[in-house]
């Protein structure tokens, strides 16, 4: 049937898959997008988006029954009463932890684009050149100049609000107007300008929340309820942004509940021919074929699909000829920083209106511009200042009517920030298939063996102390440091496992995200990353995906795929 013929198959519907579908359909390809989970329709299925916070029986908190049902999710904030449907079930989809690895997954149309933190930063050549400079892992096969026009492209369409700062380590982009700093943040930002040679700067977070309208999308309404789904389409998600664009071409077919179990491979032509799919509901299997495949199933799941493909040629799967498939898993380590009180008379009678889904950012300054530390690479901070709310009453002495009325008014100002640190790639941080354990569908699961190393441990000391130092230098009082502990995966920034490179002997993908052993397979999610930098990675996945899609269509037309 004609409707079952496709020019391209996109595996996954998250940030990368959505971009692949948009770019390929807009270039005229008939695209099949496969998503393992349920459909989530924009606005209509955001069932809690306009619910009053008081309408949740437990006011959003977790119950002991939820803790029993979600042994992994309960380790951090994702286990909650408000959007549990958008986090994958630990029971249906188990995995094996050789060492603790927190894997927070979103198995639905839109994937984690519905849930992401939206902070969006370009990488610079400090990042793309880092491995070559340090002799770590392999060199990125691209430089900033290769990606810059694609950053422009995706920023314009996704809608990134931010300020132009002219900082070489954090290139400016095609920004919508920034969300401003509040007066507490502004005060500290001003004071910090006079310290540390001006190298440590507080800027507005760059975020994929729009401040100007885009087609079909209304600017941010400052509800800060993004992770319930936005009825205004004010933050970038597959649903708000790339999916409607792809659908508008009439060239996209979206199939939810379609678990891709492997890529089919023609060993003579050295090309993938399609995908085998297990229907998550009926458990029937079906094969779809297409001359082009974009694998965007998320870092760990894309590696899983590759490992299960072309095993008659390579027992370790498609891309394993490099010896690197599944290796070099990375995340960002964090949950360490400092905070303190802003006891400033100038702020006592100042407040803010609206709840901004954003905060401030302090771009990396360590091991740059002549700074040299014992460890490699660096970290950035995300933070905010605010007046305390009723929550302060828990720790304060007092009961009664006056106490109640006082706690209903804003308390003092405080400011704090958490560092996000770069994690070096290591061949020893690896995922593989655990043949002894299966998921709900009888498929073998992943086993994950990953830990942070000495470099990250050394970096964490600076991550904690630098923030305290900056706050104290800026007149912040009662500064306390914190380290809440970190396990790989908690950053929900999984990267690596199918890295790009210049040499098929040491990398899974070439400089255009093509699998060396199957050039019609493009892998453009986090698995392609060669290093992790310290910036949030999603914007870079978008740019890499758009760039790869452009190349793929050109190559398809040239008959090279």
């Amino acid at each position, binding site marked *: 049937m004609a409707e079952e013929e496709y020019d391209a198959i996109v595996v996954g519907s998250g940030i990368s898959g959505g971009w692949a579908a948009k770019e390929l359909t807009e270039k005229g390809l008939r695209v099949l997008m496969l998503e393992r989970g349920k459909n989530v329709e924009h606005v209509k299925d955001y069932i809690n988006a306009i619910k009053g916070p008081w309408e949740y029986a437990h006011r959003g908190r977790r119950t002991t029954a939820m803790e029993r049902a979600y042994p992994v999710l309960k380790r951090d904030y994702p286990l909650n009463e408000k959007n549990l449907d958008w986090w994958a079930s630990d029971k249906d989809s188990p995995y094996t932890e050789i060492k603790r690895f927190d894997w927070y997954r979103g198995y639905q149309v839109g994937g984690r684009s519905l849930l992401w933190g939206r902070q969006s930063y370009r990488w610079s050549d400090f990042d793309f050149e880092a491995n070559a400079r340090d002799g770590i892992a392999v060199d990125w096969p691209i430089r900033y100049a290769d990606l810059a026009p694609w950053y422009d492209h995706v920023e314009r369409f996704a809608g990134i609000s931010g300020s132009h700062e002219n900082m070489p380590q954090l290139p400016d982009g095609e920004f919508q107007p920034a969300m401003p700093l509040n*007066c507490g943040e502004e005060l500290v930002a001003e004071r910090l300008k006079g310290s540390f040679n001006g190298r440590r700067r507080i800027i507005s977070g760059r975020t994929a929340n729009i401040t100007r309208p885009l087609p079909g999308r209304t600017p941010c309404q400052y509800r800060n309820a993004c992770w319930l789904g936005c009825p205004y389409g004010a933050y970038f998600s597959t649903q708000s942004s790339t999916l409607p664009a792809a659908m508008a071409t009439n060239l996209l077919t979206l199939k939810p509940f379609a678990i891709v179990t492997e890529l089919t491979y023609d060993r003579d032509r050295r090309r993938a021919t399609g995908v085998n799919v297990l229907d998550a509901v009926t458990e029937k299997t079906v094969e779809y074929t297409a001359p082009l495949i974009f694998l965007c199933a998320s870092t760990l799941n894309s590696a899983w699909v590759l490992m299960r493909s072309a095993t008659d040629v390579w027992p370790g799967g498609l891309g394993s000829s490099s010896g690197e498939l599944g290796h070099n898993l990375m995340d960002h380590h964090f949950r360490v920083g400092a905070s303190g009180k802003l006891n400033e008379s100038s702020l006592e*009678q100042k*407040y803010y209106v609206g709840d901004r889904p954003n905060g401030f950012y302090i771009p990396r300054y360590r091991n740059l511009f002549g700074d040299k530390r014992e460890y490699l690479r660096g970290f950035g901070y995300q933070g905010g200042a605010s007046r305390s*709310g*009723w*929550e302060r009453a828990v720790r304060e002495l007092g009961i009664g009517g006056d106490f109640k009325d006082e706690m209903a008014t804003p308390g003092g100002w405080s400011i*704090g920030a958490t560092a996000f640190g770069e994690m070096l790639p290591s061949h020893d941080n690896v995922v593989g298939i655990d043949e002894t354990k299966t998921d709900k569908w009888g498929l073998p699961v992943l086993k994950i063996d990953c830990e942070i190393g000495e470099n990250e441990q050394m970096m964490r000391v600076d991550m904690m102390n630098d923030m305290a130092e900056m706050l104290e230098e800026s007149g912040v009082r009662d500064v306390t440091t914190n380290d809440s502990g970190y396990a790989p995966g908690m950053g929900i920034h999984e990267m690596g496992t199918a890295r790009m490179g210049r040499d098929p002997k040491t990398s899974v993908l070439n400089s255009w995200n093509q699998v060396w052993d199957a050039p019609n397979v493009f892998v453009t999610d986090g698995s392609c990353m060669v290093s992790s930098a310290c910036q949030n990675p999603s914007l870079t996945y978008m740019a890499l995906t758009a760039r790869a899609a452009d190349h793929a269509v050109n190559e398809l037309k040239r008959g090279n795929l």
Partner: protein
Amino acid sequence: MSSDHDRKEMITRREAILRVSTMLGGVALVGQSAMLAGCAVGPVNRARATSSNTLFMQSDVELLDDIADTILPETSTPGARAAGVGPFIALMVSDTYHEPDQQILFAGLETLQTKCLSLYGAHFQVVASAQRLSLLEDLDAEQHLYMETREEGAPAHYFRMIKELTLLGYFTSEIGYRQAMRYTETPGRFEPCVPLAPGEKSWARHA
């Protein structure tokens, strides 16, 4: 002052984390699981349960309402009872507390009644509101001192649990959002720096 310094030194890491999470808008509930690992108390007496929803008898819920309404009474805005805090505490203790913490809370309610009886010769529900306030102010001072000085890993004080759930139940109720504080479902704008008059209410957060 040195006393300030000493107090700061005594703050445990857990308290520091609580402080940060409070600053960031979340509340780490003291009664909730992991923070209280290691305390040895017997199992909850499930014979207490008379409702399909909670482990509490109706008279317990009424007591909780009386306690909550003393902590957060009606002023120019409604009090905790009107906001349904008693049933909320019963639900939260039943559904979100692990058994050792449930046991601490149940035992605490009995302790509270015993104190009330010995001080005023009657149960909490029937003593005058001034006596209720006086008793709970004593318990508040007791829990505050205990919580600031307890050993790492020691269980929370029962009155801290009740106070915390009272605050949560009240300020996240519709009355808390719309009457005690100010709430707009869709602010529509972000103004980063506006004047705040004395006594002006907080903006309640959506999420």
